[in-house]
């Protein structure tokens, strides 16, 4: 016999199901209940940096858009600081860095406005290229999927990003790079997420 280790086990995950909006985005489910729905404004009005729009679809293994998906985004500000007490740097008033995004029930398109984040210092003398962190839940997804979105106009920083460089298959790195275009003079990044198949998006065990 040996001593027992006294750790608890993490509560196991379950799918968010098709009606996730009731809890996390009730306005989309079709009813008004809270004074303040969370997650609509990521950067706030005072954030420095370039204002951008991010758009995309989440696509399943048959090539069909997923129309009941919910994504959460988590990002640093333009100085590369997260709005969190463990972070030494400060963020602008009203900058939360977190947002909640749902796809259109008819088309599967989603999109949101934010600011482009800066380089993030890992504390070990290395910078991470600007990126958004995503957490994706939906019916049929048993445990939320984590991925990152990088920016096509940051090729130099992307080339030395320590996380992108962990991906042994170089072609798969491209699945994390959003492509920049302009609409009415405003930058738009397109980021489609493919859950399954040969061009599958890279997902992380974080």
């Amino acid at each position, binding site marked *: 016999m040996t001593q027992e280790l*006294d750790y*608890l*086990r*993490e*509560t*196991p*995950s*379950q799918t968010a*199901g*098709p*009606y*996730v909006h*009731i*809890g*996390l985005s*009730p306005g989309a*489910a*079709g009813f008004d*209940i*809270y*004074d*303040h729905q*969370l997650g609509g404004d990521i950067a706030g009005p005072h954030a420095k940096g370039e204002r951008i729009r991010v758009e995309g679809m989440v696509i399943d*293994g048959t090539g069909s858009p997923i129309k009941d998906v919910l994504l*959460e985004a*988590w990002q640093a500000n333009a100085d590369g600081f997260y*709005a*969190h*007490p*463990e*972070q030494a740097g400060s963020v602008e008033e009203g900058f939360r*860095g*977190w947002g909640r995004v749902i796809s259109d*029930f008819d088309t599967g398109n989603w999109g949101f406005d934010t600011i482009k984040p800066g380089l*993030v210092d*890992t*504390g*070990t003398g290395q910078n991470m290229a600007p*990126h958004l962190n995503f*957490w994706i*839940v939906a*019916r*049929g*997804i*048993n*445990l*939320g*999927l*984590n991925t990152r979105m990088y920016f096509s106009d940051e090729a130099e920083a992307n080339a030395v990003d320590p996380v992108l460089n*962990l991906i042994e298959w170089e072609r*798969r790195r491209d699945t994390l790079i959003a492509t920049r275009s302009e609409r009415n003079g405003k930058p738009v990044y397109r980021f489609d997420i493919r*859950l*399954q*198949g040969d061009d*599958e998006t*890279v*997902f*992380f*065990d*974080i």
Partner: protein
Amino acid sequence: MKTDGPFYQRDRTWHPPALSRDYKTSVSRSPKYPLISLETTVSETTGPVFGHGDIAASDNDLLTNYAASGESPIGERIILHGQVLDENRRPVPDTLLELWQANAGGRYRHKKDTYLAPVDPNFGGCGRTLTDANGYYCFRTVKPGAYPWRNWINSWRPAHIHLSIFGTAFAQRLITQLYFEGDPLIDKCPIVQTIPDEKARAQLVARLDLNATIPLDAIAYRFDIVLRGRRSTLFENRQEGN
């Protein structure tokens, strides 16, 4: 100065695998390539912080948060309470919990739900709260009903409540479902059965808690939640190569 290190790695043999064929929707929504394992960076060890300015104190009472004045939803009145801990048994204070559920007849208030059981005019079906300084939370609601879903031709979900928990870091983000002690549908449900280990499945079953009832008013269930723990920094120097 930071005293907490990286998070314990998630035991993905304890959680449900992405692909579980009996839960049919998972077949086309599960990645086929392995996940890339990542030592947590600041992008994962931080996460959004919520405060009492974000939510209303009454958001945790589903008996009143959508009911007309003086009215109440139909169904078994329950109190749902518990504690949020990490794997080191440390309470997780001030963290946001959100829940959603069907009404007593198994009908969701959602424009995509077409089940013939009626909506309850006095029941919305969502609530949210922050844990207190010791990690405790409580909600008041009605016990949800079972409902049918298109998986097999005769599939019924057990009574369940969906729960979303933030913790202190994006790495701890979790959505799960709570079931009720003694429900015979639990063992027949392909979503419950996505979890391979019986002990893990048992961790999702809320226990009847008569000591927490309000006599002549509401019965109570207890449901504790465990989030990932973090390594303490036993040695400050990092391994070579890091």
